[in-house]
């Protein structure tokens, strides 16, 4: 559930393919690590690369984050947040 304190950082990677999508996503996770871990920030990644819907959540989960994949019209939204 989103509270008033939470902030969503949006990264639009539509047009990019693997593995650069993964590297960009990981780069964003690394840079916002503290905020993500404390639950203050969620990362919303928009991608139209189907492979990224498995590689990004898989790696993020190994790093201890919770991920959700929501199909949108022509792209996917990947929401990465603190593990509850």
């Amino acid at each position, binding site marked *: 559930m989103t509270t008033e304190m939470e902030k969503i950082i949006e990264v639009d990677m539509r047009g990019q393919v693997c593995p650069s999508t993964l590297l960009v996503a990981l780069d964003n996770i690394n840079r916002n690590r503290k905020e993500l871990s404390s639950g203050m920030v969620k990362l919303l990644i928009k991608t139209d690369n189907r*492979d990224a819907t498995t590689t990004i959540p898989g790696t993020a989960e190994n*790093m201890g984050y919770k991920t959700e994949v929501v199909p949108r019209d022509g792209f996917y939204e990947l929401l990465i947040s603190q593990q509850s």
Partner: protein
Amino acid sequence: MPMDLTEFYQLVNRAVDGEADLLAGHVDPEYEPLATLIGGLLRENLAIRQNHQVAVDYIRDKINQMLRVIGTSPLKPEELDEKHLIGLDPLGIISQSFAQILEHSNQTNTDLRLARDEIRAIFDSVGGGLLVMDNDRNILTSNNRFREMFTSPDEEIVGKRCYEIICDNENHPREFCCFQRMMESGRPAAMPDWRFGDKHLSIVASPVRDGRGEIVRCVVLYIDITELIEIRLALDDERERLSTTLESIADGVISIDNRGVITLMNKAATEITGWSQEEAVGRPVCSVLTIEDQGRSRNRGDLLDEIIVNKQSKVERLDNTILVNRQGSRRDIYLSAAPIRQYDRSQAGTIFVFRDITREKRMDQELAKANRLESLGLFAGGIAHDFNNLLTGVLGNISLARLKSDPDEKNRLLNETEKSTFRAKDLTQQLLTFAKSGMPVKRPISIGTLIKESVEFSLRGSNIGCNLQIAADLLPVEADQGQINQVIQNLIINSRQAMPGEGGAIALTAANIEIANRQEPLLAPGRYVKISIADRGAGIPNNIIGRIFDPFFTTKESGTGLGLATCYSIIRKHHGNITVESEAGKGTTFHLCLPASDEMAGEAPQTGTGNGSGTGTGRILVMDDEELVRNVTASMLEHSGYEVDLACDGAGAIEKYTEARRRGEPFAAVVMDLTIPNGMGGKEAVAALLKIDPAARVIAASGYSNDPVMADYRSYGFRQVIAKPFRISDLTEVVAGVIEG
């Protein structure tokens, strides 16, 4: 021809473009040192460029290796050239990500270790034995409780098969094996009661699956339920014992839950109510136990409701209850109800116990009837005996008088006759105090004087004295003089009889007392006169002291058992109380309390002894159904100078009274009998006469001296009363008093 500088530059440029060797041996000696230097630099540059490519390839290779670990495709050179590859810093990104993965992995490991320790603690502390096996019955681990239950302390069981430790083929056939059934069904399998030696065990085998869903482990839980089984068996025994007891007792037993629904009913209850156990269980108790109040014939289901709804905390008993059974017949029952308590003292329902007492009750009634008849026989015999004695006196003296010619002798014999008659009057008076409606004819009397006269009379001729202590300010009491006299005489005679032989003295005290509220249960608060009569006799034994006031109870050979009973009856009708205290060998004391009167005591009417003088004038109407009484009353009045007319009932009296008035010869007074069988008595006749003549002087005469009309004659319209039997002097005194107004 010597080389110019331009040619040299062209040569250097070609060398830079890849022909480094051109500079060696192709330049003028003048440029030779410079060409050597440049050639060396070019070779060094080439070596550096080759090293850089190796490094880039190495980096790209490692990046791809790490990407493969992560699970994604390798970087394509056309996708990311060397320049961007270095700029994006994938190694930095991936290594930072790996750091996070490692950190997360460490945390996960810590959590897993904790979870494993927790599971181990649970494993060892669980009340049952736990065994973990692979899917081929090989034991992998077990907890302490399992080893306590099935192995010796040092026995090593890991690696053994479960049946080597627990089962033997003879007692534990394979079809009951939980492991077997679990493997076959793929679901947990249980065995509720499995015997191991003298123990009872409950077993559950549960599968553990791997990632592919294959059963790889089996966890078996063994719980020792021996104690539980023993308790259950003991409970079954107890239930059987209770059930047999319940079925064999003669009392009906019905238990209900908190809603009033029957949960249990015994055989006796089915016989009394007419409902079978099968039909009754599950029904509301009110429909099976239909009870009514004795004598009222109305349903008292409300009594049951009260017990159920109010959850009576105590045992309730209902006597005198009627049960209407299913066939509609009524049975006398004794019913008790008690709450059924649970272990926490909360109420789980109610138990009704009832007994059919119809037969006992009928027998009691028969017995009471027989007792009454016996008592009546005793009583009638006593009366007949006493009356015959008195009549002997009357008849004997009259027959003697007839024979005598001497007037003095005749007079003496008639006096004796009169004495016998008065004793007969006393006897009937005593009997009348037992009559149901008996009310004393009360007026304020000076009790002190009465006591003195009574005591003197009762002790006449005996060697017993009496110490009288009568308070000087003793209050008058509202009482029937004759009755109180009788009480005092009875008590004094009793005291006298208690002290036979050498004489002695009775102590009598009389004083005013004040009774406070609730001080004496039978007495209303107020002022009383208390009379205590104490003898120094043998005392009354403890075992009979409670019965001495019962009618017909006597310890004397010649007693009727009416003396103290009469005293009690009289005193209670005076709103007083009589009590006794007695000590063996020291004597007995009777205490009487009589309500004090606010009115001054009048003079007690003197019992006339005269013969009645012939001074009366006027016409008197005498009404009585008994000819004997009519005639003797007329004779007495005529002897006293009155003119008399007679009527035999109320209607005749009214007719004669009206006729006399019409003729102008009215009656000066009317003497009327109160009770006329099958005719109009004095009570109705006086009302009719007063309507005709409000000034009519009517005197009530009755043999029932305790008739309520006699006690309260004025409110019925009578001027005066006279109790039968009466002497001529009594009658003429009353008649003269009424005529004179």
